[in-house]
């Protein structure tokens, strides 16, 4: 029986190599330590951006000035967007949990390029620091919105250049991580792990990584052009110099729409991990879920124009983009139906991670379905650039990716830290979060259809009732989030020790100790079946040479965890 007990049973948290203490972390190329370092940074920025969001809601409590001036408000929503998108939503699941779990799930000792991995963490931190510095230097924090639309972003007297530079650097961090993951998945799978034996989280990361590698350079070039335009007035975008503002919008969304799928695909991957574990049965429609990730990534490239239905783009292109946009709904629907079907005839253990996933399916469905309103031309022209859009993308991004980030933390917390948290409190916190979330964002749909434009510091009196309701929702949501993190923090300090496999999961990370040792496996395992088979063993943890030969996997697995 392969139970994965290791001879050198020192966890990655306690291991001491060449460097000790803080340097042991900052110079570590261990994918698990890098994952945790990302987690630290990401948590800080999440709380900063969340605070900005709460301040915005406070300002919206009454028309006119409530707590801040319009200039401040404009910078606050810009930073809320930039920090949330570039520092939280894009890197959160891939950089933290992708780094931590990807090598373990495919039976590798580390990612393909461990040093590059550490380098991308430094890029992330440099980008983040630039973003923070841009708040306090130059003309003050950028006030363009996270979309940096020209010509406003060229003319704004605020410190837009540094904020775009920050986003530029963060883009490189994203590209490097994506490249690393693609190579890791291609080259470092354990013997016997065919493409269709990979866990679905790995499929999600694979699709995401390709988008990161192929789409992120576009935003890099675009942001660089903005900087050139600001410093030298080269006139690519500024109509006063013969440039074209619509060109900017195309370039921006060619990246930023696929980026939406960078954000959501890894989250969808975790849904496909959590459901079979707690239903105690194989996932429904494994291949369809895996392929639909690639389908979403592929079609996701071709729909950017739906952000520009009122920009003055030609009528034909609006119609084509609308049609393509509707096609993305198909693979997304396939995923949701397969997830629900997974529960059928399972033996469901009702635990915190599953509860978050159920909340995700409900909220994400609302987000996805309201996306149809935005995909249809007639309705989009009415509700685009209103609160309807704000509601839609918060349901998809926060309700989708954000809630799944919380689910992921609860699912893999025992593996990351080797501690257990209080499940009852986790479930209560989740309920508060789901209620608060809907009270906060649902009124946005109604206000949007009534005609409340987004990025408005002030508003007409007919909207006030909904704004008050929404602000109350923000307080509920934040208390839920604080409650949830408090519970996890307490568990980190005083929680009981977690067993190797607390949930009865079937993928490889549950076959190694919690927390895992430095190189994950003392011997590379051999894979003999699918990832979610509950009634028999599909991994041989200590195969020896015989085992590898017997299972047809003579492929050499080259993974010197460089240390």
């Amino acid at each position, binding site marked *: 029986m392969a139970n994965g007990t290791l001879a050198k049973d020192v966890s990655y948290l306690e291991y001491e190599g060449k460097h000790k203490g803080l340097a042991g972390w900052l110079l570590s190329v261990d994918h698990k330590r890098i994952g945790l370092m990302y987690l630290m940074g990401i948590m800080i920025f999440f709380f900063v951006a969340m605070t900005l969001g709460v301040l915005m809601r406070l300002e919206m409590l009454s028309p006119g000035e409530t707590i801040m001036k319009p200039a401040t408000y404009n910078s606050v929503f810009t930073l809320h967007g930039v920090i949330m998108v570039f520092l939280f939503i894009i890197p959160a699941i891939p950089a933290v949990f992708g780094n931590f779990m990807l090598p373990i799930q495919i039976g590798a000792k580390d990612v393909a390029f461990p040093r590059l991995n550490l380098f991308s963490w430094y890029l992330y931190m440099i980008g983040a620091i630039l973003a923070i510095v841009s708040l306090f230097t130059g003309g003050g924090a950028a006030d363009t919105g996270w979309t940096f639309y020209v010509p406003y972003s060229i003319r704004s007297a605020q410190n837009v250049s540094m904020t775009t530079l920050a986003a530029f650097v963060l883009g490189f961090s994203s590209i490097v991580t994506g490249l690393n993951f693609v190579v890791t998945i291609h080259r470092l799978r354990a013997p016997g792990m065919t493409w269709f034996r990979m866990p679905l989280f790995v499929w999600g990361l694979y699709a995401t990584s390709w988008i990161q590698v192929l789409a992120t350079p576009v935003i890099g070039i675009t942001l660089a052009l903005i900087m050139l335009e600001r410093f030298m007035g080269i006139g690519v975008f500024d109509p006063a110099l013969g440039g074209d503002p619509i060109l900017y919008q195309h370039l921006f969304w060619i990246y930023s729409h696929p980026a939406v799928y960078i954000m959501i695909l890894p989250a969808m991957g975790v849904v496909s991990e959590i459901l079979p574990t707690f239903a105690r049965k194989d996932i429904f429609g494994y291949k369809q879920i895996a392929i639909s990730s690639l389908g979403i990534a592929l079609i996701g490239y071709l729909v950017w124009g739906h952000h520009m239905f009122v920009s003055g783009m030609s009528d034909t292109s609006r119609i084509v983009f609308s049609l393509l946009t509707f096609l993305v709904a198909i693979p997304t629907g*396939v995923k949701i139906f397969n997830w629900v079907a997974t529960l059928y005839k399972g033996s469901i253990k009702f635990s915190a991670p599953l509860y978050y996933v159920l909340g995700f399916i409900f909220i994400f469905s609302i987000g996805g379905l309201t996306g149809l309103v935005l995909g249809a031309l007639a309705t989009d022209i009415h509700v685009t650039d209103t609160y309807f859009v704000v509601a839609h993308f918060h349901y998809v991004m926060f309700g989708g990716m954000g809630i799944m980030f919380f689910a992921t933390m609860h699912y893999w917390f025992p593996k990351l830290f080797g501690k257990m948290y209080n499940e009852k409190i986790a479930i209560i916190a989740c309920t508060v979060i789901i209620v608060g979330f809907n009270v906060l964002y649902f009124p946005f749909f109604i206000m949007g259809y009534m005609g409340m434009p*987004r990025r408005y510091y002030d508003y007409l009196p007919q909207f006030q009732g909904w704004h008050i309701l929404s602000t109350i929702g923000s307080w509920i949501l934040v208390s839920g989030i604080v409650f949830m993190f408090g519970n996890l923090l307490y568990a980190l300090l005083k929680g009981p020790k977690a067993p190797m496999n607390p949930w009865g999961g079937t993928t490889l990370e549950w076959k190694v100790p919690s927390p895992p040792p430095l190189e994950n496996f003392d011997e590379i395992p051999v894979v003999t079946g699918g990832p979610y088979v509950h009634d028999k063993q599909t991994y041989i943890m200590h195969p020896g040479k015989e085992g590898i030969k017997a299972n047809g996997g003579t492929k050499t697995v080259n993974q010197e965890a460089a240390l």
Partner: protein
Amino acid sequence: MNPIVELVDNSFIFIIAISVILLVGVTAVMIYFVFRYSEKNNPKPDQSITGSTTLEILWTVIPLILVLAMFFYGYEGFKEMRNIPPNAMVVKVTGKMWFWHFEYDNKKVSDTLLYLPQGKDVRFELMSADVNHSFYVPAFRVKEDCIPGRTNHMWFHTTNVGTYDIECAEYCGLNHSYMLGKVIVVPEKEYLEWVNKVDSVKTPDSLKTDSLKTGTVKTDSLKTTQLKQDTTKSPGSKKDSIKVVQKDSVKRKEK
């Protein structure tokens, strides 16, 4: 009723109705499964279920038909929006930080308040004097961006006499949320009287438009002070903008 409004609202209701059915269906089935197949009610999971080709085809094809129907509804409404009646009266709309400027057929101009005759098709030529704006009249369910350096078009039919909000829907800086206005639809006779009265013409660049009520006194005073402050910083015309860009780069070089 206004044809565009009807088409937009109908496609909205169509999409939302299907969405609600799907949402309630998925959620109900999910909750039912969680209780019906809980550890207690179903201690032994059925490991033989790993997928079903029939179901996969069904939930690919049915949604595909549904979304194509939604696309078609949206397309129909859009066709109406773009199908500008050839004999429509023309109003030139210029967005400028942070007010709306209108120019009528007979060169008469107005700021903030857009006077229109009842029962007419009106075609708007949308332009911008500085940055991107978006001319949005929620009551008529239409908007289109005003992009500097080009002219965009949209139209609507003025069905009923009344006053309707105009909002700027594309973020345009400090006083974006005060870039409001009103469409005032009046009987044709009244409109002709107004449009032919020359002496009531306002100077196109007048910034102090008191006629617009944003709801609070506080915001009004805030508006005028900040407008003054910022027009010095942000360029109004094209020539100015070049100057500002140069000034910025010079400043940076000094640092």
